[in-house]
């Protein structure tokens, strides 16, 4: 996704003189085209993320569109107070870009994982998080953030879409697959392997798969046909590479209560940190948390059987 993002920013920079990009010394073999396109508006702010975010806030007070880039945890956790005070309390349109959301940096270790990023950010005033799941999502996700008057967060990952399958265009809610055995709502690229595993199954033998791409959730904007499918099937599984507290799963459960939608069986499959105390690739962590496609399909089937 990073290359697609770079292309999108180059395109954005060509259209907007106000575009300024700051990186916390990240972008080797990825952001060079952007650096070349932006000249002095591409700023390597060094390994100093607190300063970088406050500088971005200062730039934004002068009507510049400041984007801040780093590995996800260094983008949201290290400078959290700067995001809260300098960006969000002032309602400034600073855009944070966290590369490698969830367990994206895998075996690089826990310091490089971002398991609480969008949950801890969207509690801040005016903050909206955008989570593209596929390569084709990146450009519209960046365009959506660029058009947003307030602060924003872009969680980048790896495109894991099945080959020769085209997802529907990016939006807050998308139905990726129709299905008759309950509903799975996923956040982020982990949905790719799930779609790949379910794609060839008949609709009658698989759950419907929906994808959420924008947080926080606005309950009134949850599609009526999703609510209807959830209520009729009675089985909802939410899957995301994020810890439970502050998650999309929590917000969906609350939204369903507020909308008066009854769900007989609800399960939230999420990041559980490091249950074994050991570390590995993103795929390994997903398996440990039950977030891999095989586990998700098994749990969804079990949920469906409980409803039946």
């Amino acid at each position, binding site marked *: 996704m990073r290359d697609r993002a770079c292309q999108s920013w180059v395109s954005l920079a060509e259209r907007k003189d106000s575009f300024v990009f700051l990186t916390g010394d990240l972008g080797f073999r990825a952001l060079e085209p952007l650096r070349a396109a932006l000249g002095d*508006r591409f700023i390597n*702010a*060094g390994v100093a993320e607190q300063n970088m975010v*406050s500088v971005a806030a200062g730039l*934004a*007070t002068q009507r510049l569109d400041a984007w801040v880039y780093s590995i996800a945890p260094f983008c949201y956790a290290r400078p959290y*107070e700067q995001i809260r005070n300098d960006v969000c309390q002032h309602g400034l349109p600073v855009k944070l870009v966290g590369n490698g959301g969830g367990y994206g940096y895998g075996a690089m270790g826990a310091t490089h994982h971002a398991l609480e990023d969008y949950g801890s950010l969207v509690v801040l005033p005016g903050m909206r998080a955008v989570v593209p799941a596929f390569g084709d999502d990146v450009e519209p996700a960046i365009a959506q953030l660029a058009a947003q008057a307030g602060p924003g967060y872009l969680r980048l990952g790896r495109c894991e879409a099945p080959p020769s399958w085209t997802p529907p265009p990016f939006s807050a809610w998308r139905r990726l697959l129709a299905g008759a055995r309950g509903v799975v709502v996923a956040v982020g690229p982990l949905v790719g392997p799930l779609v790949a595993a379910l794609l060839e199954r008949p609709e009658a033998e698989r759950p419907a798969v929906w994808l959420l791409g924008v947080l926080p959730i606005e309950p009134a904007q949850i599609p009526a046909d999703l609510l209807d499918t959830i209520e009729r099937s009675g089985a909802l599984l939410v899957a995301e590479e994020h810890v439970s507290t502050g998650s999309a799963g929590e917000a969906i459960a609350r939204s369903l209560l507020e909308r008066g939608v009854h769900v007989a069986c609800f399960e939230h499959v999420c990041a559980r940190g490091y249950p074994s105390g050991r570390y590995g690739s993103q795929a390994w962590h997903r398996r440990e948390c039950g977030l891999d496609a095989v586990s998700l399909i098994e749990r969804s089937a079990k949920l469906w059987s409980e409803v039946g």
Partner: protein
Amino acid sequence: MRLGCPLGSRKPRIGLAWLALPSLPFTSLHFLVRPLTDTLGRPIAMTDLPATSTDHNELARRARLRLLRMHREAGVGHIGGNLSALDAMLVLHHRVMGSDDTFILSKGHAAGALYVTLWTLGELGDEALTQFHADGSMLSGHPVARWTPGIPFATGSLGHGLPVSAGIALAHRLQGQRGRVFCLCSDGEWQEGSNWEALIFASHQRLASLVLLVDQNGLQGFGSTDEVGGIANLRERFEAFGIAATECDGHDAAAIESALADDVTGSQGPRAILLHTVKGKGVSFMEGKLEWHYLPLDDELYARAVAEIEAG
């Protein structure tokens, strides 16, 4: 030196209009600044504004009295650090800053001194100051965001003002705009790592329009800066970061103004001015006393403080 500068003579923050009217008294100029309203948007009567002052000492005397009254009425502390920073804020706003310039108060706990400074400029009315710390007010103990142009940024958590100021200075350069950015911070604030990050950044980016002022009163919340953080040699530290640094008496208006003169160092990058100040300046029982970082005034002490300042 422009001693005798009338109260409220700062260049108004609009275009070049002031250039045609530089010698008019404040009462003739204030309409160019902005309509005067209190925090509830009500018009402020001209009679609420302080009378024209003839020199910094008189201006500072009135400002100190108003600052003490404000803190007494609100029953709050942080007085010591307000009194140490007040002279620099008055000099900046009355003698130095122009319409293109920006002031960021990084030591947000000196908000009272900033409110009083804006009061001396007629940008806040007397009625507005009665709202200090009040319910439903905009005049919090630390400045809040988005309510008056005189306070372009909310601060209070230390170590934020300088990096934000660096961002503003960088934006000016990128957009080819004029304007200096003055950032006033405390000395204890230099225990914050983000300040050193900002110093590296500002120095590397050669942000020549950025001027850092340090209210070096030597005391912080629970000890002296030496006892707590051992940061007495800030000048050497700044210079080691490539920052041109000077020092002056932070209560001497002429010295502050002189130190703030544009060409004083010939620096091609940001510069710093270490203001030697006294916590609680102007009130003998507060001066240099740690407890006046936090303590509020009772009636008896308030009366003593007022009597001292009125006596000059």
